[in-house]
């Protein structure tokens, strides 16, 4: 297709449903969502009020799906959506929203603003109004197979390194394995230590697992840019791989959106329930722990905390598992003040980290995480999302903080 305003509006008309109509009907402009959004709290700019970011969607809803709106429109009292408006809103919808879901959890009226942003992005993509960085990531995902141009060769190289490090065999395309592990681009490209760590833990626990040569990439740029077409293609690759290898469970790695994309959006994108389970790596490790298959030795004495990735905790429901795991090895663990489902975003989720233009804003709003960390005076931040890890590392460097960020899985692997 060729993107156009008409296609954009058409896509919005398609995605507007009862929830969106109920949310817009209910909004009283109380502004509580602003206080839940770190882009507002850290900048004080009211344009970053979450419900304001979905104004174009509201306009389409009102003009197309309400008798009153149609009446006003007929009288010429409301103008149709323009491409200029979409362009004006692009930085609000993409640069200034990480889909963290905090506003959705706060809205006194019950509005799931995050859901609306996600739906608005469908229309923006169809209208061709999306940030270059995200378009590129989605393009590379479709054409190369990974937003970071990770290919099977790259994976194989990482596997070889892991095998050398651990002395273990990393299984690939092992049909009939219990689990299929997928990895995010970040984990293959930026944090290759994760694979040996997982291999070590799985080996100790006696897990039957495999990687898949046609479905190793977990990152779903389609969810981030807000195109269900792109997202569906990417999810379908994983489903095909898992079904080919006949695995019972797919393990989503330390990546927030990968989990949301596969676990919650996946079945809806391909239009049928999965024949396998989807677990986040921390969920699976916690199951091993509960079954007594995960034995650790030694303790971390560093003062540490856990940063909940939004898509894992608030939008994923995985809150206790990582804490149970950390509990096994941490001596000096503290919680941030807002934590669990109330946690503040790192600032780079929802595709924001892929938008170059958004860099200054993203680095600015890191001040929220900084003040959270400063308040509890930790030296180590554990997390379970490679993107969060990357963002926090950048923030720490920007702010010259004396804190290090570690992956939960990697830390655990050192104690098995």
């Amino acid at each position: 297709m060729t993107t156009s305003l008409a296609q954009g509006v058409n896509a919005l008309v398609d995605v507007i449903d009862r929830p969106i109509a109920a949310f817009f009907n209910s909004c009283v402009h109380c502004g509580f969502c602003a206080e839940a959004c770190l882009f507002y709290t850290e900048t004080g700019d009211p344009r970053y009020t979450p419900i304001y970011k979905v104004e174009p969607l509201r306009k389409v809803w009102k003009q197309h799906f309400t008798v009153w709106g149609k009446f006003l429109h007929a009288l010429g009292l409301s103008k149709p959506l323009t491409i200029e408006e979409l362009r004006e809103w692009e930085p609000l919808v993409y640069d200034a929203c990480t889909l963290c879901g905090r506003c959705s959890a706060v809205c006194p009226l019950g509005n799931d603003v995050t859901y609306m942003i996600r739906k608005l992005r469908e229309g923006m993509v169809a209208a061709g109004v999306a940030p270059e960085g995200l378009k590129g990531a989605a393009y590379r995902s479709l054409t190369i197979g990974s937003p970071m141009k990770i290919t099977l060769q790259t994976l194989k190289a990482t596997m070889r390194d892991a095998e050398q490090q651990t002395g273990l065999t990393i299984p690939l395309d092992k049909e009939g394995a219990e689990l299929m592990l997928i990895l995010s681009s970040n984990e293959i490209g930026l944090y290759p230590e994760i694979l040996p760590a997982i291999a070590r833990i799985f080996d100790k626990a006696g897990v039957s697992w495999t990687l898949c040569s046609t479905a190793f990439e977990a990152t779903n740029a389609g969810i981030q840019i807000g195109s269900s077409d792109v997202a569906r293609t990417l999810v379908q690759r994983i489903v095909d791989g898992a079904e080919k290898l006949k695995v019972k469970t797919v393990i989503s790695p330390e990546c927030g959106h990968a989990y949301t994309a596969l676990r919650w959006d996946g079945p809806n994108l391909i239009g049928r329930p999965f024949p396998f389970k989807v677990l986040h790596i921390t969920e699976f490790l916690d199951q091993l722990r509960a079954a007594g298959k995960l034995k650790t030795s030694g303790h971390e004495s560093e003062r540490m905390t856990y940063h909940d990735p939004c898509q894992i905790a608030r939008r994923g429901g995985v809150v206790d598992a990582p804490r149970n795991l950390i509990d096994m090895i941490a001596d000096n663990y503290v919680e941030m003040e807002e934590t669990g489902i109330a946690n503040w975003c790192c600032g780079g989720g929802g595709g924001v980290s892929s938008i170059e233009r958004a860099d200054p804003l993203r680095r600015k709003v890191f001040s929220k995480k900084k003040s959270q960390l400063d308040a509890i005076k930790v030296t180590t931040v554990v997390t379970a999302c490679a993107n969060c890890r990357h963002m926090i590392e950048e923030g720490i460097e920007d702010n010259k903080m004396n804190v290090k960020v570690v992956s939960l899985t990697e830390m655990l692997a050192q104690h098995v």
Partner: protein
Amino acid sequence: MNDADFLLWVRGPGMIIAVAVFVFGVLVRFLEMWLLGKNVDLAEPKGAAFGAGVRTMFTRSAPCGEEMCDGGFVLFSSWAFHIAFVLIFLFLAPHILFLKSILGFGWPALPKALMTILAIIGIISMVALLVHRFFHAVRNFLGKTVDYVAWTATFLPLLTGYLAAHSPLFGYSMSLALHILSFEIFIVLIPFTKLMHMFTVWVARYINGAAFGRKGVAV
């Protein structure tokens, strides 16, 4: 038109028109929303959606639990005027007479003194919220004409009701007529403004709570 004619009009044709517009408008707006439908969620649930949805319908009245946000003054004032408005509407003796004449059944009233206190609290809260909206960056930014129309439509029944009960500024007929008229304006505006939230909030909260609940998150 004199006071008595005016009162007669608001009690008769005015009320008929207002109720007709209100019922018709609310029903249309609710149905046009409801019938848009919603896709069935195919993802395997981690928690019970229904229970979570119902729970959120009530718990979201206190949205700032779990250290999510700083409720403070706005939350408190909003509660105050909502509670005052609903209790006075449902439990002031003359209102029960009004509702009984329509519904055919009544219920015991709450003491007038309590109603008076609630009305004062409601009026003060609403004025405070309005002033706050003028000076708060976000709320001033978000506030549109219709928000102020809705505020006025909500405030006037409280104010005119208080005046009618306590100091008939314009004589009893006029005070009562103005109060009834303000109520009629209020219900007429419901389907055309955000006042509609009194009906849709329950749907919105349920959907929100159910969506989080499916994921095993209680918000």
